[in-house]
């Protein structure tokens, strides 16, 4: 049943966000720490476990893969609702502060990639 996949995905998201929220409270800050990442790990582990012990059906799987395929259109919608004007209105300080941070971070990708090797 396709709803099993959607429900599993939703359950992981809610549990992940709750744990992320609790983690934030634990550190005394008003922000979610890693909720989505925790949810992703939950989905990876749970689906792996369920596959082995119950066999997730093809259709159940589609309840998850549909959402992963609709990801890019969602990102396009997200881009269409950004406050682009606000970013431009911030002037030179905002432009330099945000822009240089991004450029330097890009430069560090090849450096940090070597850690693994």
């Amino acid at each position: 049943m396709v709803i099993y996949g959607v429900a599993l995905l939703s359950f992981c998201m809610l549990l992940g966000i709750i744990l992320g929220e609790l983690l934030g409270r634990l550190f005394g800050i008003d922000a979610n720490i890693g909720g989505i990442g925790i949810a992703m790990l939950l989905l990876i582990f749970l689906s792996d476990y369920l596959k082995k012990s119950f066999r997730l059906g093809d259709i159940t799987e589609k309840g998850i893969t549909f959402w992963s395929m609709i990801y890019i259109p969602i990102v396009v919608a997200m881009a269409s609702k950004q406050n682009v004007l606000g970013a431009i209105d911030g002037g030179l300080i905002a432009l330099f502060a945000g822009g240089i941070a991004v450029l330097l971070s890009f430069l560090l990708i090849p450096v940090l990639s070597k850690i693994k090797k």
Partner: protein
Amino acid sequence: MDIFEVLNTVLSKNGLITSFVFVGCIVWFSYFLSDKLTNGKFHGSALAILLGLLFAYLGGIYTGGKQGVADIGLLSGVGLLGGAMLRDFAIIATAYGVKLEDLKSSGVAGISSLFIGVILSFFVGATVAVIFGYSDAVSIATIGAGAVTFVVGPVTGTALNASSEVIALSIAAGLVKSIFVMTSTPFIAKYVGLNNPNSAMIFGGLMGTNSGVAAGLAAVDPKLVPYGAMTATFYTGLGCLLAPSILFLIIELLY
């Protein structure tokens, strides 16, 4: 009977459905352009994201609001489709099929990239603030935090009692970062080796802006999305933890 009024009512009332048509048209048009003009060399999804940002800019000018096209009544559904709830739902779904070995083998690099990313962005923002003449530790730290993400900026500014003008500036710095990551990633990716799960995790940890990382990787290779999103999701939390505390104290010592 006014046909425009009927149209307006139906499209607004069924906002989410209208947004599917709107986004579908953007994506179709982008892949069409990518195919005809660049022979598919420039990714259709990258073009679609750029077009989306362009519409957001036009929407901002037209309505004066902060939500891009979502402030236009007819297109309010775009706000729901592109909002944090569905975005995060889809990001989590992309994790289905992630290889655990890839996550484990990049663990150390991913975690170090998180700390380096937050600290580097903070000090870049702080330095720019100093160059532009700010000399009080609170303003410098708030603008530095804005260069971390547009959430960390106001969280830090509020905690430190920064002026609302400085907080607005920190949000703008975070917005620039996020939009710059969205637009530049497809162009820069091949020069920095951003083409495998390991470098995607590092990318997510260094940049940290959820929307920037989500859109940037989608335009490079959708398979890399879960790896970048995995580290990026810890970034804002870590920033909120470090910026108003240790990082602010360092700035205060210097000033």
